[in-house]
C-alpha cells in the first residue's frame, strides 16, 4: 500500500509521549497561576494594618503621683498598659516564688528595670484571649495571687503579673520602655 502523507494531528503522540504543545500548556497554566496570585495578594494584604495604624508613637508617662500599692492604666497602641508601684510586701511575695514551678518562668527582676524594681509595667491584656484583667483600679478583685484577675475565663496573675492559674499561657507582656527620670518613663 502506498504511504500517504498527511499533516500530523493534535492527537498524534511522538515516541516519548510528549509534544511541544504540552510545554505550552504548562507554561500557560503557570503564568495564569502567577497572575492569579499577584491579584489575590493585594486583596488579602489590604486588610493588614494601614500606614496610620503602623505609625505608632511612643508615650511618656509621669509616675510621680502613683503611691505604693497603686496602679494606673493608660492607652498605648490601642491597648491598656498597667503601671504599678509595688509595695515591699508585694515584691517580697513575688521573689518568694520558686520560679521553676511557674507556667512561664520569669523572675521579678527579669520583668522590671534594674534600679526600678518597684515599678511593674505590663500590658493590661490577658494572654489568653485579650481581655483587660481586673486589679489595676481601686477596689477591684486581684485574684488568688494578689496581682490581677481576668474575668473573661478566670486567669489569675501574681504580684509580678505572672500567670499562676487559669487558661492563659503566658505572663502579662512587658512592653519596651525606658526610665528618663526616676518617676518618668517612655513606653514604646
Amino acid at each position, binding site marked *: 500500500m502506498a504511504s500517504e502523507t498527511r499533516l500530523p494531528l493534535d492527537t498524534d503522540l511522538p515516541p516519548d509521549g510528549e509534544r511541544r504543545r504540552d510545554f505550552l500548556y504548562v507554561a500557560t497554566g503557570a503564568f495564569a497561576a502567577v497572575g492569579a496570585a499577584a491579584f489575590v495578594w493585594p486583596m*488579602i494584604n489590604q*486588610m*493588614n*494594618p*494601614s500606614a496610620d*495604624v503602623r505609625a505608632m508613637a511612643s508615650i511618656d508617662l509621669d509616675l510621680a503621683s502613683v503611691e505604693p500599692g497603686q496602679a494606673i*492604666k493608660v*492607652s498605648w*497602641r*490601642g*491597648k*491598656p498598659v498597667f503601671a504599678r508601684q509595688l509595695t515591699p510586701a508585694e515584691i517580697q511575695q513575688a521573689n518568694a516564688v520558686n520560679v521553676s514551678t511557674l*507556667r512561664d518562668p520569669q523572675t521579678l527582676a527579669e520583668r522590671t528595670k534594674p534600679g526600678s524594681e518597684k515599678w511593674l509595667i505590663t500590658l*493590661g491584656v490577658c494572654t*489568653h*484571649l*485579650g*481581655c*483587660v*484583667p*481586673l486589679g489595676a*483600679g481601686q477596689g477591684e478583685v486581684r485574684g488568688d495571687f494578689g496581682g490581677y484577675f*481576668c*474575668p*473573661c*475565663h*478566670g486567669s489569675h496573675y501574681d504580684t509580678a503579673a505572672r500567670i499562676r492559674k*487559669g*487558661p*492563659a*499561657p503566658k505572663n502579662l507582656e512587658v512592653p519596651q520602655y525606658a526610665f528618663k527620670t526616676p518617676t518618668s518613663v517612655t513606653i514604646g
Partner: protein
Amino acid sequence: MSFPWAKHYQPTSDLGKYMDSRLPLPRFVHGALGAGYPTPKNLNYFYNFGVLAGVALVVQIITGIILGMHYAANTTVAFDSVEHIMRDVSGGWMFRYMHAVGASFFFAVVYIHIFRGLYYGSFKPPREVLWMLGLVIFLLMMATAFMGYVLVWGQMSFWGAAVITGLFSALPIVGEAIQTWLLGGFAPDNATLNRFFSLHYLLPFVIFGVIILHIWALHIPGSNNPTGVDVKGPQDTVPFHPYYTAKDFFGLGVYLTIFAAVVFFAPNVLGEADNYIPANPLSTPAHIVPEWYFWPFYAILRAFTTDLFFIPAKLLGVLAMFAAILLLFFLPWLDTSPVRSNSYRPLNRILFWVFVAVCLVLGVCGGKPAEEPWVRLSQIFTAYYFAHFLIITPLVSRFEKTLPLPNSISEAVLAKYGKPSPAATAAGVGAAAPQPAE
C-alpha cells in the same frame, strides 16, 4: 426531584406558553415548590423549621439593609448612630429590635432544624451533602451574627471582637499574624469595625447562595420523613402545593406571632445589658458572655484549663470548640445504623435526648461566669459531647436491635389510625428511583 407521578407543568395561557419555550421560570417554581414536587404525606410540624429559617434570613436581610441606611461604621459615631436609629429614624426602634431579636430567632429555629435532622436521621445516605451544606450555612451564620453584634460598638461588641479574633492567636506560629490581619491593627479599632460592616453585609448573600444549593440537594432525593422509610409509590406522597404550602404558612403564622410578641414586649430579654455601654478599650466588663446561641460552644472553649503534653490549654480549647462543629460533618459515617428514624431505634432515642440535655447544660454553663461549679460541669459535659459522637454513636449503631420498620409511609400513617394496610402498597410501582432535578 420528581417521582414518576409528579404532576408536570402545563402552561394554560398564551403568555404562559410563550414564556415556557423561552425562560421556563414558572415550570421551575412549579417543580420546586408547587404541585410538581411530591412530598411524604406524614411530615410533622418539625418539618416546618426549614421554611422558618428561610423566612428568618429574609427578615434579617430586609431589616439589615434598612438599618444599613442609617448606621455609620466608624468608632466615633457607631454607638450614637444606633441610638439615632432608636430615637430619630421613623420606626427605627422596631427595625433595630427586629434585626437583633431576629438573629436569636434565626438561631433558635436552626437549632430545632438541626436536632430534627439528628432525630430522624436526615443526615444519612443519600442526604449527606444536604447535611454538610447545612453545616456550612450554620458556620456562616455564626460568623455573620458575630460581626453584626460588633457593629453596635458597645462593651460586649468590643470585647467579643477582642476575644473571638483572639481565638486565632492561639494557632502556633501564624496565629498572631492572622489576628492582626483580621483586626487591621493590634487591638479592635476603627479598621476592625469598618471591615466587619462590609463582611456583615456580604455574608448573608453567601448564605442565600448556599441555601439554594441546600434546597437543590434536598430536592434530588426528596424530603426525609418521620418514619425514615423511603417513598415507595404515589400513595406515600402529596403534592407540596397546596398541602405543605398551607401547613408552612400556618407554622409561619405561629412563629411570627411569637416573634412579634418578643420584639414588641421583651426586645432586650435575650440581649446583654452591658452592650448599652459604649465600648471602652481600657476596661472589660466583669461578666462578659457571648450571645446565648454561642453559649454551648463557649462552655467547650472554657472547659480546657490545663495544658496537655505540648499543647497549651488555650489552643486546646480553641481546637475543641471548632471540632465540636466539624465533628458533625462526619456524622453520616459515624452513625452507620441502616435505620434512619429514632422512632424505630429504642436505645438511640434515649441517647438522643441525653445528648439534647447535655447540649442544654453546656449552654447554661457557657452563660455563667468561669467559676466552680460551672467549669467542672463544662468539663464533664464537654467530655460527654465528644464521647457521644466518637464512641457512643458508632457503638450503638453497630449493636442496637432496632424495631421493625413499616413497609411504607402510607402503611405507617394508616396503622396510626387503626386502618388495615392497603393492598395497593407499592403494587407494580416498586421503589421509585429518584431522578435528577430539572
